[in-house]
């Protein structure tokens, strides 16, 4: 395996032109990539490109309309950001519950996005806040909404030579929360997780509501039928039955499809009653 460590995006693109090897991995934090390495079985890429040193892709900055997160920003930096805590509660909370401290110091938000796991903890928050993913390729840059960028488990719209450079979040003053059900307090991959973004009037009625759930479909999914039912004013008990229309869970080593469906409805209901004060507490 050959190892390269470009210092800039230009250097990265120049490197790509010279490479002839067919299998190549991009290394950011490495926390999803490295557990899959099996040198004994030859399951290694021919080329590893370590992008962690590329300039200008780290850190959280703000302007009047947006918060912009560099793709190489670590989950620990997101967890510690007061800006994120104040304005993007679901992302801040997801970072808090993300793996353990050792992994948070390495794992990057760009890596979590490109890994495109159906269970990725950072993703539901990005979906409900309708994050835009900024990509830089050899022929220029483009921007795609997160829900269009991820197309399947481990699959994204990333073209050869492109990397994620930034994540853009609009500052709309929307509140959000994140909830994760795992088999262990930390390091656990979610059995189900979700983020809720909402605005409420002074009576507690929703003026906007957006929910995205993970681990219940090939990608993160919006719970549109459930949200429509809630917004139409039906009772929480009735609305919760619509969740099954939005999801398509499977059986795997962590849980069965039935369990995921039941668990998601239960923890959603819990959050609506106790965190959002809907129905009877």
């Amino acid at each position: 395996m050959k190892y390269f460590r470009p210092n800039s995006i230009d250097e990265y693109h120049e490197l790509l032109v010279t490479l002839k090897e067919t299998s190549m991995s991009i290394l950011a934090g490495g926390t999803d990539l490295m557990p899959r390495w099996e040198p004994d079985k030859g399951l290694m890429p021919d080329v590893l490109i370590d992008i962690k040193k590329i300039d200008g892709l780290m850190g959280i900055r703000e302007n009047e309309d947006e918060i912009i997160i560099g793709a190489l920003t670590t989950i620990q930096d997101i967890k510690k950001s007061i800006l994120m805590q104040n304005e993007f509660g679901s992302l801040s909370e997801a970072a808090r519950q993300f793996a353990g401290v050792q992994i948070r110091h390495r794992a990057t938000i760009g890596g979590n996005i490109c890994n495109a796991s159906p269970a990725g903890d950072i993703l539901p928050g990005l979906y409900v806040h309708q994050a835009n993913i900024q990509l830089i390729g050899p022929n220029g840059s483009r921007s795609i909404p997160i829900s269009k960028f991820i197309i399947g488990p481990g699959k994204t719209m990333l073209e050869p030579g492109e990397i994620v450079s930034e994540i853009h979040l609009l500052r709309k003053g929307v509140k959000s929360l994140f909830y994760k059900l795992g088999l262990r307090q930390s390091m656990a991959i979610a059995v189900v997780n979700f983020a809720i973004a909402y605005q409420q009037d002074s009576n507690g009625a929703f003026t906007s509501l957006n929910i995205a759930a993970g681990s219940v479909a090939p990608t993160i999914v919006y719970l549109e039928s459930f949200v429509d039912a809630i917004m139409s004013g039906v009772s929480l008990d009735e609305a919760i039955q619509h969740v099954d229309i939005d999801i398509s869970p499977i059986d795997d080593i962590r849980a069965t499809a039935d369990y995921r469906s039941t668990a998601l409805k239960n923890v959603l209901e819990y959050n609506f009653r106790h965190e959002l004060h809907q129905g009877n507490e």
Partner: protein
Amino acid sequence: MGLKQIELTVNDFSHPFLVESDETLLFTLRNRLYLTGTKEGCNQGTCGSCTVLLDGKPVLSCMTPTLRCVEKKVITIEGISSGENLHPVQKYLVKNGGLQCGFCTPGVVMTAVPFLEENPDASRREIKEGLSGNLCRCTGYKKIIDALENAAAEMRS
């Protein structure tokens, strides 16, 4: 294959040697530097027993390519005490009996030291959360957390 000559700074000593481009820091520490205090548990980023400090931050050495550690400072469990003088975290793990088989202990120490240095006033709940990336299969954690509370008290004074 891709052997590379590198210099690695471990516990304040600089070591020149050859490494494979695909080897992990855990492998390098244990098999090239014979620093076997760092333990290989799950080798897939779940158990925390291979935790070391990279530029002062706790990371899992089983998930860190060695080539990425060039020009950085690595501290392992062997670099925590000064001779016979144990770090408060080590001292109270011994005093409180915060270990049985001891396999997870180096990882616990390497996670707890930077955590308590950064959060000397951490509550019991915060200590538990800070250590949640480290598995212990013997003690049931109570004595470990007791030890870290005592260590925090000494580090505050």
